[in-house]
């Protein structure tokens, strides 16, 4: 279907690796004119400043132009226009649509009806493939490989969209996972079944401290109060999953700490100066990965 990227599972292992290769090339040389004359639409039906700015910068540094909106309230959908009509309208102006929508499946629907490729910038709690690809790129850059790594996932593993996608994407590369989460937010059964089906070994724990000394990657996510049925349980655990600098003493030299951001309390600021903290570079990698995605989708170089 027309080069759209809706879900990380739309890409084969080869396609993932080719994006990472391409991102490496863009990192060396992000300012080009390869998208000169192209128009990219950023349709953000719910605001997400970080992702939108990342896509827009990616396009502009390649010489392309942007049209779009950053909030459904300022778009025609506030007048009652259907998504179908909005997509058809925009596709007659733009060469690619980058879309963020609060409803799950919106990007898949848009990709089905759109004559131009659609890149999913997040559909509800479902997919956010450019985030997953930038996570993979970050892992690849820092570890030199994606193969046979020990990856520790921490925090909200029940609702964490980025965590679920990362498991699916890494499944091509023989990882070993450790899941660290409070009981209320532990990794859902369906992902454990996925791991078993793909012969991926994993272990689970509710404890963070001293529990990731053999990890190559520590992927932190936020434990949100709103996700808890039992608020007393939240109060009990809210600090258990906070990363502090003194937890890093016995970790591997090559360990890198990732976080999809925004970071609230789950990584203490005393970690930022530690060379193992990688979350800001991770966000910066998003620029190069998105350049790679937009270029691939447009069939440019």
């Amino acid at each position: 279907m027309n080069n759209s990227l809706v879900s990380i599972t739309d890409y084969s292992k080869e396609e993932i690796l080719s994006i990472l290769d391409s991102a490496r090339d863009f990192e060396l040389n992000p300012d080009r004119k390869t998208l000169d004359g192209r128009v990219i639409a950023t349709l953000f039906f719910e605001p997400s400043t970080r992702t939108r700015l990342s896509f827009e910068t990616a396009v502009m540094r390649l010489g392309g132009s942007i049209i779009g909106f950053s909030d459904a309230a300022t778009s025609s959908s506030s007048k009652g226009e259907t998504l179908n009509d909005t997509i058809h309208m925009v596709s007659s102006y733009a060469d690619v649509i980058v879309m963020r929508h609060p409803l799950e499946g919106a990007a898949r629907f848009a990709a089905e009806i759109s004559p131009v490729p659609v890149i999913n910038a997040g559909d509800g709690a479902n997919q956010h493939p450019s985030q997953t690809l930038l996570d993979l790129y970050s892992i690849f850059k820092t570890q030199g490989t994606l193969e046979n790594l020990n990856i520790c996932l921490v925090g909200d593993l029940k609702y964490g969209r980025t965590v679920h996608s990362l498991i699916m994407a890494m499944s091509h590369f023989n990882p070993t996972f450790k899941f660290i989460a409070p009981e209320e937010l532990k990794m859902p059964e369906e992902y454990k079944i996925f791991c078993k089906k793909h012969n991926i070994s994993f272990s689970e724990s509710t404890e963070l401290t001293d529990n990731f000394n053999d990890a190559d990657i520590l992927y932190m996510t936020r434990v949100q109060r709103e996700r808890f049925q039992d608020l007393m349980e939240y109060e009990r655990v809210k600090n258990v999953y906070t990363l502090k600098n003194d937890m890093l003493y016995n970790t591997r030299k090559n360990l890198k700490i990732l976080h999809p951001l925004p970071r609230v309390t789950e990584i203490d600021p005393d970690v930022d100066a530690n060379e193992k903290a990688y979350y800001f570079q991770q966000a910066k990698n998003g620029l190069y990965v998105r350049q790679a995605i937009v270029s691939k989708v447009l069939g440019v170089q």
Partner: protein
Amino acid sequence: MEKKLKVAALRDGTVIDHIPSDKLFKVVQILHLDTCLNQITLANNLESKKIGSKGLVKIAERALAENETNKLALICPDAKINIIRDFEVIEKRPLFLPDEIVEIVQCANPKCITNHQPVQTRFDVIRDEEKVRLKCRYCEREISREEVKIK
């Protein structure tokens, strides 16, 4: 003398028998029989040795296509389809659950686009050993056969 309601035998058409009684009207719905102009006979809550209580549907002068009858595999997989020609059963058609189910099933995810915009639902049928699950093409969530809600 007992008065019996005689349901005329079909000369030509389709008979769907052994429909669980609680599913009869879903069958009518799925096959859009409300807009079908052929002579239709519906019966429900009949005694059945096989399943206790059953319903049945007879549609005169129309042989349902396989892709139509296969829609029924989702809600009454053990129903029996007989195609009749000249008062004879010329085909006993088994029901096969198709690989894709379009429009019949509602997505259980309240945040799925199909529940907010005019989008036809599409489910991929996932056969996992003996269990059958339906995966929404759009929001990618899965439901078990038992959780299926007909639109």
